[in-house]
Structure formats: C-alpha cells, structure tokens
C-alpha cells in the first residue's frame, strides 16, 4: 500500500509542479535538435520536432492522472448511487437498471469509448464523460449486489426499527458496509481509465494530437522505435505502467483500511 501511495504521490507532485515549472515549454518545438537522445540538457531526450520530452512527460501527468481521477470519481458517485437505489428498493427500478447495465457491458470498454469519442469528437471533457460513462455499469452492479445481500441483515432491520427513513438505511447504514469492494474497484477502474485515455491518444481519437498526453506521445514515437529513437515511446509507456501499477497496489489495500474489523 505504501508503495502504491508513494508512486501516486510522486505523480501528483509532478502534475502539480508542471503547472508552475517545466524545464522547457512542453508545447515549444525546436528547443533542442530533433531526436536528441537522453542527455544532461534533455534528460529524457527530445521528440521528432525537438520538443523536450521531460517537460512533455511532466505535463502529461496532469492530463492522464487528472482524466483518470475525475472520470473514476464521477463513475463512482453515479454508479454507486444508482446501484444502492436499485439494490435497496428492488422491483421495477432494479430490473430496468440491470437490463441497461447488461446492454452496456456487452460492449468492450475500449470499443465503446472509441465509438463515442469518434462520434462526439476529441477533447478532455469528452474523454472524461465517456470514461465515466463506461465505468458506471460496474459500480452500479457492484453496489447493487452488495446492498441487496445486506438489505435484510439485522443491523439494517435495527436501523429501520429505530425509525430511520429507508434512504438513510440504504445510504448511511448499508453503503458504508459495502464501501470496501467499491473503493477497491476504483483503483482498477482508474488504471483502466488511464489505459483507455492513453489508448485513445495512441489511436489518435482522444485529445488533440499535439496535447502532451502519454498515449499521444507513444503514438508519435512509434516510428522511432524501429530506427533506434526508443526514448520517445519508452518513457511515456513506463509512466503509464507505473501509474496503473500504483493504482492496482492501492486498490488491494483500500478494502482492508475501510473495514474496522481488518484495520490494524
């Protein structure tokens, strides 16, 4: 868990730092020679246009981390709310919600994201909306199952017995007990969101091709891999690997922390 938090803290720090300072202007081509290998002047080298890779990587953290975190937050809130309502009240609401979830889950996440982004156009906001939307069904299904299985547990009954309203029983008493699996999934979802953002960038569908986003950068550098300019794709790839790995590590630990019975 500490490793996960440590790595993510590093990414956050870099993303924040990039708002104030980068060694060079990340959008400025020609600050160095085209395809300069890593050196003291350019620790991560330069790309085809001579832009500094380190500066672009730092700015990329802002995009990839920002998009992943915001998209996951929206999906978590919306999916969990709908899932809790469906799981607690059951009936028609539950049936409709679950059939919709099944329809969405029939599409692979990346394909869905590609189709929608292609239709609505590129841009940070669109990518966030699409990723949130793609995440909602899983949260809904998870929350619904958790709440449904706990609905008739005795502490829920005890909460109703002292006169709590049903929404309060569902959201204030049952949902906290279901938080572990939901929060643990956020890290998997964040890793997925980061990968899809990068994949969309790689496929030229996500953000504007000049945006210093890691997926875009890998796409731009792919020609260089064959001719020896490995650093253009390698470092953004490593950054994505580190971020997704950190999210996975964090997820494993979250469910332990949220449950007082497993807290040490």
């Amino acid at each position, binding site marked *: 868990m500490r490793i996960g938090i440590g790595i993510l803290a590093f990414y956050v720090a870099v993303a924040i730092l990039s708002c104030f300072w980068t060694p060079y202007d990340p959008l400025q081509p020609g600050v160095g020679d085209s395809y300069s290998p890593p050196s003291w002047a350019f620790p991560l080298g330069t790309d085809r246009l001579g832009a500094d890779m380190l500066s672009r990587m730092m700015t990329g953290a802002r995009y990839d981390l920002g998009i992943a975190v915001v998209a996951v937050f929206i999906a978590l809130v919306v999916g969990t709310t709908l899932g809790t309502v469906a799981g607690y009240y059951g009936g028609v609401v539950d049936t409709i919600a679950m059939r919709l979830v099944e329809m969405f889950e029939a599409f692979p996440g990346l394909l869905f994201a590609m189709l929608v982004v292609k239709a609505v156009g590129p841009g940070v906001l669109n990518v966030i909306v699409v990723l949130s939307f793609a995440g909602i069904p899983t949260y809904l299904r998870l929350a619904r199952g958790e709440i449904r299985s706990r609905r008739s*547990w*005795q*502490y829920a*009954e*005890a*909460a*109703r*017995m*002292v*006169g*709590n*309203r*049903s929404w309060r029983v569902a959201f204030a*008493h049952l949902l*906290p*007990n279901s*938080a572990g699996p939901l929060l643990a999934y956020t890290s998997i979802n964040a890793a997925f969101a980061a990968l899809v953002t990068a994949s969309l960038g790689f496929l030229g569908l996500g953000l504007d091709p000049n945006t210093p986003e890691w997926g875009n950068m890998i796409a731009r550098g792919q020609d260089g891999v064959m001719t020896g300019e490995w650093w253009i794709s390698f470092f953004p790839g490593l950054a994505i690997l580190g971020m997704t790995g950190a999210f996975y590590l964090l997820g494993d630990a979250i469910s332990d922390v949220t*449950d*007082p*019975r497993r807290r040490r």
Partner: protein
Amino acid sequence: MNVATAPIVAAAPLNAAPLLEIENYSGSFRARNGDLTPVLYNVSLQLKTGVITAVVGETGSGKTLVASSILGIQPATFVRTSGRILLGGVDLVSLDEKGLRKIRGGQISMVFQDARAALNPMFTVGRQLADVHQRLHGSGKAEAMEAAVDAIRRVHIPEPARRARQYPHEFSGGMAQRAMIAMAALICEPQLLILDEPTTGLDVTIQSEIMDLILELSRSRGLTTCLITHDLGVVAATCEEVVVMNAGRVVETGSAETIFTAAKDGYTRKLLAASQLGEMAA
C-alpha cells in the same frame, strides 16, 4: 447481582390498563405462486402498562412474527388477513410507513437476539447510540455522545467512555447485548420495549446478568416490557404476565403464578414439564 438482590421497584398491578392490544390478528405467508399458508390464527393478547409480559412458545410458534408485526417490520411475504394492533387507541396496522416511523424507536423499541449482528460493524458503538439519540431527541452531536456514554455506563459496561469508541466486533456477546439494551431502553426512551430472545446464545451467567439488567431497567422506569422467549426459567424469574403460543395460536394467557402453578392448557403443561418448572413452582 442476581434477581433476588436487584433493586426492584414494585411491579405494576396486574389490573393495569393495557398499553398495547392485539385483537384477532391472523396472517399467512404468500408463496411465489400466490398460495397463502396461514401461520397466525386469531392471536389476541394485551401488554399492560408497566408490566413485564412474556410471550413463550417453541421455535416456529409465531411469537417473533407477532412482535415484528407490532413494529411493522414483518417479512415482505407475510400478509395480514385480519385483526388489529392497538397502541393507545391507534391501529398500528392501518399506519403507513411514515406513521410507523414515528412509532418506531420513540414509542416502541426492540432488542434483537443477536446483538452483535444488530449493531452496524462499521461504526463505533458510541456513535450508533449517539446517532439514535440525535434522531429521536434532536440533540447536538456532543450532547448525544454524552447521552450515549451515560447509557453505556447505566447498563454496567465498565470504562464506558473507552467502550463507546470501540467497534461492535470488540464487544463480547453479553456486552453487545447490554449496548443494544442501552440503545433500545435508555436512548430511545420508549413506552414499550420488546425483547426478542435477548439471552439466547449467551452463557448462563451472562444470561442472568442480562435478565437482571432488563428487570432493573423495566421496573425503575415503569417500562412496559414484552419478553419473547422459549426459556421458561427466565420467565419464572422475571415476568408478571405470560402468554403461551403454539403453532400460531395463543393457547393460554394469565399471570406468571397461575401459569406456573395451575396451567389449564395441555401444551402449557407439556412445556412446563419439559423444563421441569411446573414441579418446581408447585
């Protein structure tokens, strides 16, 4: 402390007015195919003000179903076919969810069999009691927590302030039951306290301590108490009135003394013989 030395305020007279009356209450379970299986047959009983009434009977006799019907928390598949449940002249059966919410906790509260399962594992015991206090009495956070710690102290849990900060899994079964009683009797301050098998699953020594506590709280506060149990030993030691149920029917009602010494119904006599209390009382 045992029953004999408990600081007991005189029990209410047995001719006291009833606080709650159940009249000809019948109901069935509805199967998936719509078929009704009758489980309660014209159940009629009275819970007299300030009196501890026991509802006894073997497992499956319908006693818990009757108790949950009072609070409107019966299983969704249960269908009432006739009868009324009157609390101060108001038929609880006719109340909607909103009306029942006003009754639950503030007027009628319930202690469940497995207290550790009835306490939410995610919150500290103190916070759970304080939440109920805030909801029912509109108190502030600090005041509610003070009331919670005080209630924990009054049910004889040592180190109440520290215990209030602990989670249910850190409580033993008996301790959790005390906390649950603190919530139902002291925090809710109800007119009627229903205890559903509160000592089942506890050690014999803890059982007697819990019953002492129930007796002490009921008598000192003049609380109308309904004790659902299959343990006749507990009934003999604590209750003034007894309702015997068998297979969904009330088979005999009377004072504890009458039931234990001169039971009329065959099932009651069988129950007494099985627990060997009939002979003891005689």
